[in-house]
Structure formats: C-alpha cells, structure tokens
C-alpha cells in the first residue's frame, strides 16, 4: 500500500502544474480540480492510515525509495518517502483540513476582484499542499528542506496575493526574509549531519545519534540550529514578527498556511528529530524557554489588538509556543505537542474561517471595534466560531482542553522544581490570558450593540452583514465538529500517544508533581474562567468605543507595539546590518574601487599626457628616434669599454 504513496504528493503537484501552466483555459473548472486533487490525496491518506493502524508497532513504519536525487560522490541523497504514524498524522491533517479550506475558498475567493485569479489561487494552494506533503513525508532532511522551501515559496506568493497593496508586498517580503534566517540554521544543521555521518537520511542520522557518532557539542549545535529553523518557520521568538503581518493574505491562506499547517512545521521538525533532542537535554531546555517566552508574548500582544485576524495570528503564535514547549519536554511531551498541533489545526482553522466569514459579511473590515451584535445575523458562523473559541480556551470537553491540559500537566511535572514552576506557571498564565483575549474577541464581534450601523466601511459602502453561503459554512461546521470531538477522540484511552509511539517513543508519565496531579485540570479551567470573567468585566459590560482608547498604560502600549518585537529586530539586526553595509559600501567605493579606479585614472591620465607626444610631426619622431639610438649606442659602448 505504501509503495504508491508518491501519489499523495503527485496529485496536488499535478493540480498546481495544470492550474498554473494551463492558464485561462482552466478558469471554469480550476477550483474544482484544486479541491479534487486534495480530496484524492486525503482519500489515499485514509487508506494508508487504515492499512497501518491494525499492524504491529514495528510494521507501521515503512520507507519508499523513489529515485536517486543528488548522487554526487560522497553525497548520496535519495528521494524517498517515509510512511510512519507521524507522517500519516500530518498527511491527514494537511489534506483533511486543506480540503475543507479549499472548499471554503471556492466561496471566499468567488468575489475577489479579478475572477480569473481564483484559478491561480488554487494553483498556489495546491502547490503549497504538495510542498507541505513533501516536507512531512520525506525520508531525509534534504527532502524535508525541499518541502520547507516549497512551503516558504507558496507562503510568500499567497501573503503577497493582493498585489495592489504595498503592505501585502512588504509582509510577503518580511515573511520570506525572516524565514530565510531560520532556513540558514536548518541548512547548517544538515551540513553538520552530512559532515558527521555522511548522510542526511533520517534513519542514518538517528542511528548516528544512537551510536554516539555526534559529540555532545555537535548535538547541542544541531538542536539549536534546528530550533532556529523551527523558530523561523513557526513564528517563534525571536523570529515571531512575520506571522502577524502574514495576515495580509486572504483568510483561507491564514487559516491553512499560517494557522493549521505550515507554521506547525517547526513542531514537526523537532518532533521528527526527537532522537537528537532526546539525546541533548541542554538543547531541550532552550526549546522549552523559547516556547514559554513565545506563548506568553503571543498572549499578551493578542490582548491588545483590535484586528480580528491579528488577534488570531498572535493566538497562533502563542499556541505554537505551547507545542514547542511540549516537544521541548522530550519524551514527556513529543506526542502531546503533536496532539495539540492536531486539535489546534482544527479549531484554529475553524476560527480563521469564521473570522473570514465575518469579514466576508463586513466588507473585508478587520477592526473588531466596528463589529458587534453579529451573533443573530450570522448564526452558523457564530456557533462554529463559538465552538472553536471554547476549544481554544480549553473548556472541557472540547478538544483544546485535552491537549492543552496535558501540556500544562507535563510542564508542571518536570523533575527540577524551578523548571516546573517557571514553565508550568508560564503555561498556566498563558491559559488565563488566552481565555481573556479570546473572550474579548468574541464579545466584541458577536455581542453588544451593532456598532456598524452608523458607519461605513473604508471603501464607502454601508455594512449589510449576512450569513455566508453554504460552500463556506459547511467546512466551518465540519471543522467545528473536529474542534469539539478531536481532543476526546485522541486523548481518552491514550489512543493517539500509542499510535505515535513508533515514531516519537512511548510517552513517559511524570511522577514528580509540584501541584497534585488531580488538581491541575481544575486549576487550568479555573484560570481560564477567571480570564473569561475579566474579559467580561473589561469589555462585555461596557460600551466598546469605535476608536482605540488613548492614552493607555505602558503594558497596553507595549502590547500594541508587538512588545517592541519589530523595534527589537530593527535595533539589534537591521540597524547594525545597515551600518555594516554602509561601511562596506564606503570601503568598497573609496578603497577597493578607489584602488581600481585610481590605477585606471593613473594610466588614463598619464596616457593622456603621453599622447601629447604624438604631435604628428615626423621630425619630432625622428628626434626621439635619434635620442633612442644615442642611448643605445652609449649603452653598448659603456658595456664594451667599461
């Protein structure tokens, strides 16, 4: 069954090829083809899944070698696919959620300016899915890197989808550049692997780790470099700034690429490299720190924004922080991180689609201060969004509760007490803050007075909110069902962790508890409810002003400025970079070019003066000839008689 697994990648790739090369001829049925290829991949993924579930643990992993990709002397890279529980999980997530969002896009993109462009959009979307599948299905780090860059390209193309907006172009560029920073880390990590074990295939590298081929220093370097790659792709501190800006793209793109799948590639990378991380506790500590910092940053900033997509984007940053924190816990958390990734994929995609539905109804307005009272007008959107919201803030029995609570428990269950307090505390704080900002979002959007009645949208139209067409609501309903049930389905009876065990190892249970095991879920839920209550006190009770309140205390100001993340980058990297570049340009212009140009000028100038000797008068030439002859004769005589 696994032998034909390349079909999974081939379908969307073929779709992208047809749609992008076919041009306008495919306009009429392009979106249908785009959905059909993903559906085909999804169906094949299901077949793969069911053909492996019943098997023994060892038999669940199989490798398919397709062709020799880069055969250069020592460097032998085979292009192959690795079918194991982890990759099948991702395969199903990507194609399943991807299919739903593709369907949703048919409706969402239908009214985009330039009807023809919907076909190109689906081409890019298929390209993204193909690249993402290569990323998760590849059997080596180079294959992963191919997919890694492929999704980066698709992300770039789709963030910059609205080519008439300078902000979209800037955001696309920013995403691309910050991703490159991370990619450099990943590339260097691959170089180190090749240097040490002479191969970049997963099996060879992990065997090398098991055999002790890597020194501890190399292992730490690998973990940090891979983490750098993960930070770039997943919007983790300090490379988190691009992800909120990426919301410039169409909402389905935000839902699929920048919430459900691509940004979780960093989590996948760390989970996939679990033998390396298991072998390096120091590296894992850094991962945990990064995850904890990011999750708090994301929550704090999320509280301050009024842009519905930005709030969701920072929510994504923070939730991925949870995942990174989880996988940083090592054997205690790999499976939990992946589980949260899956549930998050459902409910965050649903939330984004809901937000897209709201925007669709509100003339593409994203400012929540202009919303309000939409619950009655858009009941389906409200219900599905509300379910996603409950899942995200971790209300039992919705999916987010199971996955997030497990992570918080694992974080609190670390052996060293200070770690347990610090990281567990950060996770708990994050849970409370998440509840706060998400409640704020829901209250501002769906409840309260209809603030949009008296104003017009930025393009001068009046607001006439309406429920979205069924082609958009049905995917939202399906995702809402996932948001509700996925957590329980995965967590109860530990089915998911056992399913993943062949890839990431058996989930270890901590026996060290700073807070009693049974209290943690209550504590989490209690904190979340506290956040909800606070949000109601601050937002729900009062009238929401149409413009941002000013002045505000420092924490809010800082949060509105992304906690100065951009300033931080500007100050620490961009400015010195600019200065260095200027200095180099100066040196290049004045010294290097000066040397070259000076030589040229010297020759040119002296030639210009020597040229004057060419008077055109034969007698001058004869004079110099005679002078030369005299010198010659004098030299000869000097040699002869000296």
């Amino acid at each position, binding site marked *: 069954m696994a032998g034909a697994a390349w079909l999974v990648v081939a379908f969307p790739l073929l779709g992208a090829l047809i749609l992008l090369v076919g041009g306008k001829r495919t306009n009429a049925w392009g979106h249908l083809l785009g959905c059909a290829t993903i559906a085909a991949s999804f169906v094949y993924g299901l077949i793969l899944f069911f053909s492996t579930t019943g098997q023994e643990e060892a038999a669940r992993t199989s490798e398919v070698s397709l062709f020799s990709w880069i055969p250069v002397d020592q460097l032998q890279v085979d292009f192959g696919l690795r079918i194991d529980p982890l990759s099948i999980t991702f395969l199903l997530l990507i194609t399943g959620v991807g299919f739903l969002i593709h369907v949703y896009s048919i409706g969402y993109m239908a009214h985009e300016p330039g009807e023809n462009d919907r076909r190109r959009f689906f081409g890019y979307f298929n390209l993204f899915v193909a690249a993402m599948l290569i990323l998760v299905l590849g059997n080596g780090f180079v294959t992963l890197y191919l997919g890694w860059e492929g999704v980066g390209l698709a992300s770039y193309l789709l963030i910059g989808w609205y080519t008439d907006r300078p902000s979209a172009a800037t955001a696309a560029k920013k995403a691309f550049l910050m991703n490159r920073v991370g990619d450099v880390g990943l590339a260097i990590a691959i170089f180190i692997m090749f240097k040490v074990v002479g191969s970049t295939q997963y099996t060879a590298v992990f065997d090398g780790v098991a055999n002790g081929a890597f020194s501890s220093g190399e292992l730490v370097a690998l973990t940090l470099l891979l983490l750098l790659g993960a930070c770039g792709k997943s919007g983790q501190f300090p490379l988190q700034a691009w992800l909120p800006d990426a919301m410039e793209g169409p909402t389905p793109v935000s839902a699929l690429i920048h919430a459900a799948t691509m940004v979780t590639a960093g989590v996948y990378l760390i989970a996939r490299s679990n033998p390396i991380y298991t072998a390096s506790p120091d590296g894992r500590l850094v991962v945990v720190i990064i995850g904890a910092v990011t999750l708090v940053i994301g929550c704090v900033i999320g509280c301050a924004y009024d842009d519905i997509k930005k709030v969701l984007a920072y929510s994504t940053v923070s939730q991925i922080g949870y995942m990174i924190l989880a996988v940083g816990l090592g054997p205690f958390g790999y499976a939990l991180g992946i589980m949260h990734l899956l549930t998050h994929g459902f409910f965050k995609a649903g939330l984004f689609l809901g937000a897209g539905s709201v925007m669709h109804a509100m003339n593409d307005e994203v400012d929540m201060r202009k919303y309000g009272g939409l619950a009655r007008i858009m009941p389906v959107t409200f219900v599905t969004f509300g379910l996603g919201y409950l899942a995200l803030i971790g209300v039992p029995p919705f999916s987010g509760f199971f996955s997030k609570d497990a992570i918080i428990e694992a974080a609190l269950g670390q052996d060293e007490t200070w770690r347990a307090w610090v990281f567990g505390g950060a996770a708990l704080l994050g849970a409370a803050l998440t509840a706060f900002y998400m409640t704020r979002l829901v209250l501002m959007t769906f409840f309260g007075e209809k603030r949009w009645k008296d104003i017009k949208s930025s393009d001068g139209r009046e607001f006439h909110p309406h429920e979205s067409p069924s082609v958009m609501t049905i995917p939202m309903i399906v995702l809402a069902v996932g948001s509700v049930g996925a957590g329980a389905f995965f967590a109860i009876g530990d089915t998911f962790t056992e399913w993943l065990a062949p890839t990431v190892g058996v989930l270890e249970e901590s026996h060290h508890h700073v807070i009693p095991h049974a209290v943690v879920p209550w504590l989490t839920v209690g904190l979340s409810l506290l956040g909800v209550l606070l949000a109601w006190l601050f937002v729900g009770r009062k009238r929401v002003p149409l413009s941002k309140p000013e002045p505000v205390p420092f924490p809010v100001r800082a949060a509105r400025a992304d906690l100065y993340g951009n300033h931080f980058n500007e100050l620490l990297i961009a400015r010195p970079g600019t200065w260095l570049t200027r200095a180099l340009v100066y040196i290049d212009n004045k010294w290097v070019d000066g040397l070259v140009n000076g030589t040229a000028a010297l020759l040119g100038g002296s030639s210009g003066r020597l040229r004057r000797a060419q008077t055109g008068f034969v*007698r*001058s030439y004869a*004079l110099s000839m*005679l002078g030369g002859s*005299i010198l010659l004769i*004098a030299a000869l005589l000097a040699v*002869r008689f000296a």
Partner: protein
Amino acid sequence: MSAVLAAAAAEVSTGEAIAFWVLGPVALAGALGMIFARNAVHSALWLVLTMLSLGVMYMVQQAPFLGFVQIIVYTGAVMMLFLFVLMLVGRDSSDSVVEVLRGQRLWATVLGIGIAGLIVGAVSRSLTDVPVENLQQQNAGGANVNNLGKSIFTEYLFPFELTSALLITAAMGAMVLGYLNRHEKGMKRTQKELVEARFRGEYERPSPLPGPGVFATANSVATPALLPDGSVAPESLSRLIDSTASETFSDEIKSVAGTEPGPDAHALTPSTKDTSTTDTKNTEDTEETR
C-alpha cells in the same frame, strides 16, 4: 718576405694622405652647406660636391668600380632625379626661417654632436692600431670589377636577385604613384562641361579674355586691348608682362583714340546720382497721384 709585404701594405701613401686631407674638408663643407643652404637647389648642389669627393675617396681606397658608380649613378643619375623633382614641386619653395617645433633645432644639434662624439670616440678608441690589409692582390691588373662580379654572382647571388625584385617593385611603385589619368572622370573637363561651368559662374568671366581687338595699333601681347570708348580693357593686360601696365600706354592710347575719355556715348543709363534722384522723384509722384 710576407712580413715586408705586410708592412708595406700597412702603410698609407703620402699621396693618399694629401688626397684625404683635401677631399675630407671638401666633403664636410658640402655636407654642412647642404643643411645650411636656404634654397633646396643649392642644397642639392652642395650634396653633389660631397658625393663627388666621396667618389674620389672610393677610388683612392682601392674601390675604383664603386667610385665610378658613385659618380655616374649617384651623382649623375640620382641627384639629377632630385633636381628634376625639385623643379617640379617648385624650386622657389625655400624653407621658412622660423622653426615651428619648439626646441627642435637645439635638441637636433645637441643630439647630432652627441652621436658624432660617441661614434668618433668609439672608433678612435678601438681602431687605433689596426693592421691594414690592402687590396692589391684582388685589384691586381684591373681585376677589381672582375672580382666584384664573381663575388656578386656567386656568393651574393641570392641578395642580388632580391635587389632585382626590389628594383622592379620600386619602378612599379613610382609608376603607380606618379601616374595621373587626365582622362578619368572629373580630372579634365570637356568643352561642354567647361562652357556650362563658365555660365554657372565658376570662372571670373563667361567669355574668353579679349584679344587686342579692332582698335589695336599692334598685335603684340604687350599691347592692351581697347574698349569701344577707347579705354584700356583691364583684362587684356598681361600679368606676366608687368611693364606693359596701362599707365605706360595711357597717353599713347589717348592719342590713338583721338578723344579724351568723356561721357559714354553708348551709355544707356545716366550717372548713378541722377538715377537715384529720378527714382526718388518717381516714387514721390506715384504717391502724390494716389
């Protein structure tokens, strides 16, 4: 015996010494005269003097064939060719005194003295006591020409053939450079073209110059033509014969015409002053009538 011969051979006879001390200064004088003479023809003649002296020196130095060739071919033919060309390009085109190139004369003199000093110094230093092998043996019985001929046609046959090629090439080159096809288009005008050119105004006047004419008292070219009013036609005055200026003949002309040149009987227009007044009057009249 041979030593005696060698010693005898090494000596230079008194007669030759006298000849050298006479001819050497003459040759030097000729050379200096050539470069100092302002007129090119004089330069050529000074050079002839130098060449003749050198020709005699060749004969004195046991090279009679070369001496005669020098006199006959060089002085006789080549220098005459020079003179021919000089006459062709204009013998009176003497050099101007002003030197246009700054420092040219000074440097030329300095370098000339320098090279002379270097060569003289080198020769006098290295060739003080050279044993002289005279050419009596080779030249015995007027065999100089014979031996030269043998040498040229045996040992130097190939260079000799090369010189023949060179001479032919030079002759061809001279012909190509010197040939001027006067019948080529644009070189010489036909009568028709000439007439058209005259009437287009490319020449000073459309008609030929006037001849002595019917009123002439003589048919000499020195006699100017007379116009119908008895005045001298200025075009008929020969530029070459300046002495026949009209002034010389003016009185004679008057007497011949029998009349002082007065107002022109055949003139169809009044004098310029009258013309202008009339014109003004006419214009005024026309204005008044209007």
